[in-house]
């Protein structure tokens, strides 16, 4: 290895950061290039510094470690460090290298670093397959969606989502204050939004039930929904059936 691996710490507690830094001091293959106090900073620095590996806390102010990962353009290897054991399964859904439970020993952490080195050596960075591999372990439905618009990170409560439109590898999320782009699949939102409130009415649309104002027939067996803001969206046959089931008509 010609140069050391670049590591970034994203962790809100100073003492926890200090511990990590002292564990990693003079590490032969890994070098700390920066630290962040929260997910917002994390997004910025990861995209800017492009580290190879990130030590990531999960419960942090504003946005969680998981939400931060969704906003990244550069995808580093992730080692989670947290006091919560209940996120372990979800962590591996995000293709994490390791999951360190606080407090952890130096040896345990070095093991995790070994795994990173191995993974990078084998060039098996498989982040792009993440979406397909993930089995969507759903522990609970989303109550907010975090999006990045240019340089601002927005937290959208799901109640504010009018509808979601698919756009190739992205989705457009329409809210009262505009639309937001996010790199996720329709399938992801279909399974992670509460089906009581959100229906996939068409291959390209997921609609919040509460925003539907009207359902109109415009041809035989062909329907459109009209939202409260007058937007018209096409409804597929199966979509129409789902609406019928939920609204009981």
């Amino acid at each position, binding site marked *: 290895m010609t140069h050391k691996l670049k590591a970034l710490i994203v962790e809100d507690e100073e003492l926890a950061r200090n511990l990590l830094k*002292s564990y990693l001091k003079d590490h032969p293959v890994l070098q700390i290039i920066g630290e962040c106090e929260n997910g917002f900073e994390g997004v910025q620095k990861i995209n800017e510094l492009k580290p190879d590996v990130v030590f990531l806390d999960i419960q942090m102010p504003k946005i969680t470690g998981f939400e931060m990962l969704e906003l990244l353009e550069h995808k580093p290897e992730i080692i989670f460090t947290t006091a919560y054991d209940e996120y372990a399964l979800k962590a591996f859904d995000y293709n994490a290298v390791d999951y360190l439970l606080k407090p952890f020993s130096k040896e345990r952490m070095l093991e995790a670093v070994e795994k990173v080195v191995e993974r990078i050596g084998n060039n098996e960075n498989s982040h792009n397959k993440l979406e397909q591999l993930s089995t969507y372990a759903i522990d609970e439905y989303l109550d907010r969606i975090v999006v990045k618009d240019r340089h601002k990170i927005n937290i959208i409560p799901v109640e504010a989502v009018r509808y979601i439109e698919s756009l190739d590898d992205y989705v457009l999320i329409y809210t009262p204050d505009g639309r937001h782009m996010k790199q996720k699949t329709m399938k992801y939102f279909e399974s992670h939004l509460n089906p009581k409130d959100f229906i996939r009415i068409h291959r390209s649309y997921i609609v919040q039930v509460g925003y539907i104002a009207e359902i109109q027939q415009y041809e035989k067996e062909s329907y459109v929904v009209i939202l409260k803001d007058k937007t018209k969206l096409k409804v597929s046959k199966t979509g129409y059936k789902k609406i019928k089931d939920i609204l009981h008509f």
Partner: protein
Amino acid sequence: MKHPFLNNKKLLFYYGLFWLVIGVANALVQYLWYGTDLSAAFLSALTFFVLYPVLGGSIWFIIKYNSLEEKDLLWVMLYHLIGATILNGIWIYLTFILTKIIAPLHLQELYETLPGKLFSGYVLYVIYVLFFYSINYYQTLKEKIQKESELKSLIREAELSALKSQINPHFLFNSLNSIASLTINSPEKAQEMVINLSRFMRYSLQHDQDETVSLKDELENIKLYLSIEKVRFGRKLNPVFNIEESCQGVQIPNMILQPLFENAIKYGVYEATEPVSITTNCKNEKGHVAISIENDYDGESVRNRGEGIGLRNIRQRLELIYGSAELLRIEDQKTSFKVVLLLPKTIPA
């Protein structure tokens, strides 16, 4: 309580079966042994073992409203005497009608044996009363046992959740992680934190939920808790206390404030990137102390607060101890969250 026959179809079945067997046996004995003619034997069995059991079912209602525990024995007996007389009157009247229809020839005989028949009516009444009292007793006992076990499981649940909240694992593990970090660069601080953590946990483990403590002791423990969290959160956590001296001695339920501070940390400090004040005010007012705990929070990232387990638990305890859940008030201003507790100075026994 519903009529046991309506509640318990099996009981009704056995009741019917019992009197059917007795009735058939009685009719056969009269017919085969005493040589009574068939219609008379049938009639007698019908009135005694079908008609009376049907009418007798209503005796349960007299039992129900004449509990021996609630009323004087004399009154109960009087009511039963009246009940028995009315019931027997109806019974005899219906017996006459049935006799007229089935065996009019025996009407004369009925007149002659009327006093004996009435007498057996009263005796039967007593038997029914005993029967229904025992059923009633059994039912009440069963209900009581069920209620008791429900209550027990409720208490166990409360104890368990109390135990769990006393030692919040995330608080513990994060604190231990801080200690691990401190041992490297500032061992004295690590030592101090271990001691504070031990004192805090000893206090939590020592006191039962039904105990009362002075406000002073409770606040001391809270300060200990906040000092431990302060090590983790540093400048982000800014506790402020305004306590009127005269409040200090007031007795309050143990650990009733703790969850409020845990919430303030969880929703206020944990979600913030800027310093957050947690302000505690205690005022000595007429009849009660008013304790308010207020923290800033970021309404944008903290959502769906609602009333969590912590607040509900406090409400339940206030309800149990003071008989009112209204002593806890919440003021949510979307940028600050305030909980006000009005604790009476005397705790009802």
